């Protein structure tokens, strides 16, 4: 009698999702948000909030595209898992591609988001799996990032109404602005509301994600700001699950390149299924 376990399976199918010819856990890592204009900070309510949101997205994703090499550490009470990966995120082509390089067990696993279709390639069984929209809330590769957090379709400007809540002093003497974001009606977003703390220069400091009851569920902290191509970029992102003790995922950036030449060949099936 496996009834109980089968129930588990049923919830598993939700976790796994079935689409196209196959389905899977996990999804596209990557990116956040939209276009940009460089900005000059104005204090408090006088600020152009839309421009601020664009500015933040621009810092995180570049104006055209961003390439990076990162190490992701998933921390759980019983284990830590470290993965290295390379990622290409092109806002211009509305596509992103991630390839896991380490550990050997997962090397060659790749994710492609293109034309709003998300797919994962698993070299071990030489199979490509489509990740359905219903799986966007699921954990990405067992991390505290959901598919939506990383392969996000939603945009801070397009899907949220933002307003300045307050200003405060941040570490290092910078002035930070606290924004309250509320999802627009019918916006296809996971989080009904968010709180964003960023500096006047649009460098993100903290994102807090709330459910519809207004309870904070997740929080991402940005730190280790270094200058890349003349702009400030936080090199350590830590996503903490606020509902579970001792559970977080850390992204450490080793290499970041903004707005470089990014060939369309990267975002192809051929590249997806290339393996190691």
């Amino acid at each position, binding site marked *: 009698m496996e009834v*109980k376990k089968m129930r*588990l399976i049923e919830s598993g199918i939700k976790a796994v999702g*079935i689409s196209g010819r196959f389905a899977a856990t996990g999804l596209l890592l990557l990116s956040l948000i939209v276009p940009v204009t460089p900005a000059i900070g104005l204090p408090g309510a006088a600020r152009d909030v839309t421009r601020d949101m664009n500015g933040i997205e621009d810092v995180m994703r570049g104006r055209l595209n961003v390439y990076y090499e990162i190490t992701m550490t998933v921390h759980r009470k019983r284990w830590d898992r470290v993965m290295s990966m390379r990622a290409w995120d092109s806002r211009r082509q509305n596509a992103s591609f991630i390839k896991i390089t380490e550990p050997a067990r997962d090397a060659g696993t790749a994710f492609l988001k293109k034309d709003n279709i998300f797919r994962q390639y698993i070299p*071990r*069984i030489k199979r490509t799996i489509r990740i359905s929209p219903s799986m966007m809330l699921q954990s990405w590769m067992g991390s505290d990032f959901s598919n939506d957090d990383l392969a996000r379709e939603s945009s801070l400007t397009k899907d949220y109404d933002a307003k300045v809540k307050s200003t405060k002093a941040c570490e290092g003497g910078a002035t930070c602005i606290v924004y309250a974001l509320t999802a627009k009606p019918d916006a296809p977003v996971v989080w009904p509301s968010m709180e964003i703390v960023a500096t006047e220069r649009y460098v993100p400091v903290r994102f807090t994600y709330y459910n519809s009851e207004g309870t904070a569920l997740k929080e991402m902290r940005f730190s280790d700001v270094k200058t890349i191509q003349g702009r400030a970029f936080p090199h350590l992102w830590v996503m903490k699950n606020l509902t579970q003790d001792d559970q977080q995922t850390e992204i450490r950036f080793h290499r970041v390149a903004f707005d470089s030449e990014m060939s369309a060949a990267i975002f192809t099936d051929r590249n997806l299924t290339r393996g190691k």
Partner: protein
Amino acid sequence: MKTTIKLAIRNLLRNRRRTIITSLTFAVGMAIIIVTNTIMKGSHESNIERAVRRSSGHYEILYRGFLDKQTLYYSLETSHVNGEAIRAIPGVEALLYRISAPVLAESEGRTRLIILRGIDPEKEADYGGLKANLKSGSYLDSGDLHGAYVGSGMAEALHLKPGDPMFVIGEARDMSVAAGAYTVRGIFETGSADLDRNLMLVPYESAKEVFVMEGFATEGVVMIKSYDEMDRVGDTIRKLLGPDEELVPWKKIIPELVQLVALDAAFGEIMIIILAMIAVFGVINTLITSILERRREFAMIMALGAPRKTIFQIVITESILLTFVSILPGVLLGIIGSVYFIYNPIVLTGEAARSMQSWGFEPFIYGRLSFKNLWATSLSFLVLGLVFSLWPALLAARTKIMKRLQRTE
């Protein structure tokens, strides 16, 4: 008293056909109860035992949290379990580690959500290995890491036959992607729709690799030799476990089975009571008929001076003797009938079979004869026989002398 017994015996012997018929009614009634009990108990216990042995085992040793969460994150660290000491406990038949996890199985574009279970093919052959249920192809080989043994329902849904490739994908212990490529080696059919549709067996070593389970298992399954020893053995095992592990009895792992068992038992009891009533009334009916037949005879004896008390005593003695005499053939008939059903299970078909299968039971009813069944049935018939012989005895003692003698029959 001696005379009464002598007369009663003579009466019984005088009309042998009547005596034999009454005795047979009694014996057959008893046999029916015994056989029904045998079938009930059999369908009950053998199904429980079968279901338990090939699924959860009598006990499962689990990491705390696994029972609720059911994810590989809560896997059992096998080095934390003193397997040697547990296996050495008298009454423990086996301690077997398994890795069970939900996966999506795929073959040629068809997909199905199933349970993948890694087992030791040799040690589990008679338990969760389901070797006896092989339908086609061959059983698992522990050296064949890409061999799979799948249920017939799953094989049908995915259009699989021995030799076909298939893929599974799920989540590993470290929450990375677990993926494996397998070749179907064999197909099993247990009759349990649940197992046949949802279970895929692979060698333990293979599951260990796919789910990143080196040094871990999802469950340590404990098989116990005799059901009666469950509590004692369980207490001993508990003392050997660390704070992170717990011992969970099958009733907690598969509560659906417990409910079904209770329901089944209740229906069984109702059925036995109805059958017993039918049997007892059959016996009383025969006894009363034989008394009514002899009313003239009783009237004659009383006319000759026998007190009503004597008639009452004679008739009740007859009934008691008859009861005693009938018990042995009743038990014998019951045993014969029971043995038949032990070796020839009742095969259920149609809706009944489907409902059994959907609960993980085989659509067969095997008999199971217990000593208790025999003595309990004998004793209750003895008591019933004695109590109900009062009625014909009273009837005989109340015979209206004049009325019966006037008639020429």
